[in-house]
């Protein structure tokens, strides 16, 4: 049973398993450093659809299907789907789920959504609610650009701190305790805002939230960064990661060696010209499901603290001059089911 220890942290005593996972990405992500890890790479960024919104839903369906295939699971076996994306009213997920019978819980946490979905799917599974629960998120560069920024053919210059929304999706299916990877604990973060107003510097807006949630997780459970092989943040990018190191440095904690960031991993910074790295809730989802979960399953990684971070802004609030609040949630994934 799930045990609430305070400070947003839930310990999952039954250590539910990530029974399957799948990932799907676009061409550019497929050509990136992790290209060979992904289950499905599309040469066509429209995924055969005539709008970018439908393309994103199709992309999400591919990730979902890949997870079902890997686990030899039929769609009807899934009890609840926790899914989210960056589009207004969470339509990327709603439309990808409209033709299957899964119980759909749409979530929004900007780029933190995968951790949010994973945390809830795991707590449900740990509590014995639902036999198999899916956590599923996506983002698409073109659908995000037209909603948050400029038309595709508009001649604008991206600033050096801007991040590139990944066309990517990942799906993890959580079930009762069986085989690694196991989900051991989750920490739900608080909304943090340290006054960053530049929508082109989301890494800086999110770093305080990542710092706060990771620190809370470690303190609540009495751990240090050395207890993990990898502290994996989602989409802080290069700027946000540096700031995260700075914040931990002020406590005298050296995070750098244990840390990596999905936004830094998914693209080749120089060759792919993505400025401060990748972003989008499909970025952390695809890196987790394509690259990290297989390595935990094989035992190559023993303990991973997956911490997806989100910038909870909208174009309206940014135009109104408001600063950008950030959020982060931690999920502790492990190869072993012992305590720690």
């Amino acid at each position: 049973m799930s045990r609430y220890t305070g400070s947003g942290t839930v310990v999952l005593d039954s250590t539910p398993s990530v029974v399957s996972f799948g990932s799907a990405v676009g061409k550019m992500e497929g050509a990136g450093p992790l290209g060979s890890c992904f289950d499905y790479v599309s040469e066509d960024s429209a995924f055969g659809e005539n709008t970018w919104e439908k393309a994103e839903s199709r992309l999400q369906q591919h990730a979902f299907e890949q997870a079902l295939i890997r686990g030899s699971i039929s769609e009807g076996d899934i009890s609840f789907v926790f899914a989210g994306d960056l589009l207004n009213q969470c339509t990327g997920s709603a439309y990808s789920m409209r033709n299957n019978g899964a119980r759909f819980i749409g979530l929004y946490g900007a780029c933190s959504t995968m951790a949010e979905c994973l945390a809830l799917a795991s707590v449900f599974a740990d509590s014995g609610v639902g036999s198999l629960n899916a956590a599923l998120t996506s983002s698409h560069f073109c659908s995000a650009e037209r909603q948050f920024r400029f038309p595709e053919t508009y001649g604008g210059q991206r600033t050096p701190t801007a991040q590139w929304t990944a066309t990517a999706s990942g799906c993890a299916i959580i079930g009762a305790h069986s085989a690694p990877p196991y989900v051991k604990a989750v920490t739900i973060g608080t909304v943090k805002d340290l006054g960053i107003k530049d929508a082109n510097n989301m890494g800086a807006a999110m770093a305080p939230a990542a710092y706060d949630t990771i620190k809370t997780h470690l303190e609540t459970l009495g751990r240090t960064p050395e207890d993990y092989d990898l502290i994996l943040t989602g989409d802080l990018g290069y700027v946000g990661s540096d700031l995260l190191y700075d914040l931990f440095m002020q406590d005298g904690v050296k995070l750098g060696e244990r840390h990596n960031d999905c936004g830094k991993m998914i693209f080749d910074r120089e060759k792919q010209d993505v400025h401060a790295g990748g972003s989008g809730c499909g970025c952390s989802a695809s890196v987790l499901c394509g690259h990290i979960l297989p390595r935990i399953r094989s035992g190559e990684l023993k303990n991973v603290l997956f911490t997806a971070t989100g910038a909870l802004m909208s174009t309206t609030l940014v135009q109104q001059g408001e600063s950008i609040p950030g959020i982060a949630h931690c999920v502790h994934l492990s190869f072993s089911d012992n305590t720690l």
Partner: protein
Amino acid sequence: MEYLWAFLIGGTFCAIGQVLIDLTAMTPAKILVTYVVSGVVLGALGVYEPIVELAGAGATVPLTGFGYNLAKGVRKAVTEDGLIGSLTGGLEACAGGITAAVIFALIAAIVFGRGDKTRRTRRSVLRS
């Protein structure tokens, strides 16, 4: 010589814009508004006319030239028609450029497919 001045003056207008983008928090839209309004003001004060005479297209092609054109149109219309000219002169002078942009945009919307920055190589065939 005319081309040299067009290059230098036109380039300078653009370089100033780049400085504003890189060193201030101004968005491109705000920079363009500033340019067009500055063009109107400089045109009204009679400062822009000599730049146009010197640099030709180097002064009329940047958006300050658009503002200068608006001011010139209004001046002509107000002198000929009185107060109503302040409402008619500006658009009249810029009608060609604005209407052309709208018409070509419509045609482009009809003719061309969607843009896609993630597609770095040549247009690939859609695969379903």
